[in-house]
């Protein structure tokens, strides 16, 4: 039994090490900082999988593995508080769970201490949100689920994510409406105030000039 479990772990580890990151990538200079925005409901898990490759002038290509290059990952929540700020190695994954709903900013930059942008970095990045971030292979293995059980679990998670998103949408809609209503109110009040100021101004001008002309004995 223990042997069987061990075999499991080995298989898992071997297969995990083979799984690659996404094919989407971009280039940044060594000192450059790249930020992405994720608008998510609260209590939602976000997983970022990345891999950094350093440009190699000798081969005119990118080195598949670049030891020494680290990635500084910084995540800020809508209130501009730091949720995560950590230096990772050249390849890895970061995870965080949102506590406040809204726009989370994920910033990546290399841990290079150079003053000037030296060489270029190629960054592969994949960001998964909500139930997409769950590794169901792991879940199935841990809880010994059959296919049906796993499927139903996936559906449940998905539905839950949808309802979370919907709650957040309701919340945003409320804020949206508040802004619109406030704009509406202000348009009204500003125009009333401006009319009042205009009338007062006219009245004051008349009175002032009248008394001025009288003092000057022009009228």
């Amino acid at each position, binding site marked *: 039994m223990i042997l069987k479990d061990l075999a499991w772990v080995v*298989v898992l580890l071997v297969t995990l090490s083979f*799984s690659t990151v996404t094919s989407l990538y971009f280039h940044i200079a060594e000192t450059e900082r790249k930020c*992405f*925005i*994720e608008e998510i409901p609260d209590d939602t898990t976000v997983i970022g999988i990345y891999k950094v490759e350093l440009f190699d002038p000798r081969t005119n290509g990118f080195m598949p593995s670049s030891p020494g290059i680290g990635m500084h990952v910084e995540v800020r929540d809508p209130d501009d508080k730091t949720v995560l700020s950590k230096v990772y190695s050249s390849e890895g994954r970061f995870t965080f769970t949102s506590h406040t709903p809204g726009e989370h900013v994920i910033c990546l930059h290399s841990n290079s201490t150079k003053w000037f942008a030296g060489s270029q970095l190629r960054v592969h990045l994949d960001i998964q949100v909500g139930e997409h971030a769950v590794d169901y292979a792991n879940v*199935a293995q841990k809880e010994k689920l059959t*296919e049906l059980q796993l499927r*139903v679990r996936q559906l449940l998670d998905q539905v839950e994510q949808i309802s979370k998103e919907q709650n957040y949408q309701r919340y945003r809609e409320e804020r949206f409406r508040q802004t619109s209503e406030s704009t509406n109110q202000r348009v009204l009040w500003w125009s009333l105030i401006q009319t009042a100021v205009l009338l007062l101004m006219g009245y004051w001008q008349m009175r002032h000039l009248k008394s001025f002309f009288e003092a000057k004995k022009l009228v």
Partner: protein
Amino acid sequence: MCWTKYLGQRIAGELREADLSQLSSTSLARVLHFHPQSTTLIREVSVSFKGLQILIAIFYRLETNMRVISTLSYTFLLLLNYAVPIWGADLMLQVPAGREECFFEHVDFNRTLYIDYSVVSSNQGELDINFQLSDTQRRPIISEFRKTESRHELPIMMAGIYKACFDNTFSHFSHKTVAFHMSVDSDDDTNWKDYDDNFQPDVQVYDVQVNDIKSIIERVRVSLNKVQSTQDQVRLTELKDRGIAESNFERVNFWSMLYMLILIFVGGMQVLLLRSMFDEKSTIRKYMAKFKR
């Protein structure tokens, strides 16, 4: 099996009250914390929910009647792990004024590349951006000039690296926030591979039912995916509209304030000028005289 028990307990009350077939779709929706007012989504999902209810009910009964525990085969795990690399990404980023942001994606032969983007906000001015997609030889395939949003579906005939660029070099002050999605064969549900042969059959006796349930689950999944993509679209539209509403709010405040100040200033100036015309000793008159000379 604890989670199924939990689920079972959650809907046990519902089950006790009503026959399985009569279980209303809203009851499950309630259990799953759906707000009853959100009828549009419910309507869309309810068809699929019907299936899910029956499925969960049957499932729960299977659970209690016999222990359906089967070990997973190693091959299944292997396959699942290879299913983890996900095609495509949903990203949102800010393109500063005068900058260009590029992304690359490797696409295999005979696949379809899906790209859609939308400029959701900008600190001032129009919501537009230049977009260019170049093929493996760096030749542009798609060039779009100052568009707010667009969607493309490209059959790929040449394997290699495709480059997508968002170009904001035409604006000098306005930073644009762009949400984009780039994927290969996006209808490929990566978290939902076909594992049929890799699982041990759940229960031999219930084979037919199990297959029924599987097809039901499949349908639920497809509908839920549709719901999610609609939700994403709605979210982006809402984000854009909110940006416009907020900039309107600021615009109204700013311009109204400015007009009021101009009003007061002009009013004051009128009086001063008029006074100076009839006043020999007026300072403004002296200045004006100086100015004329």
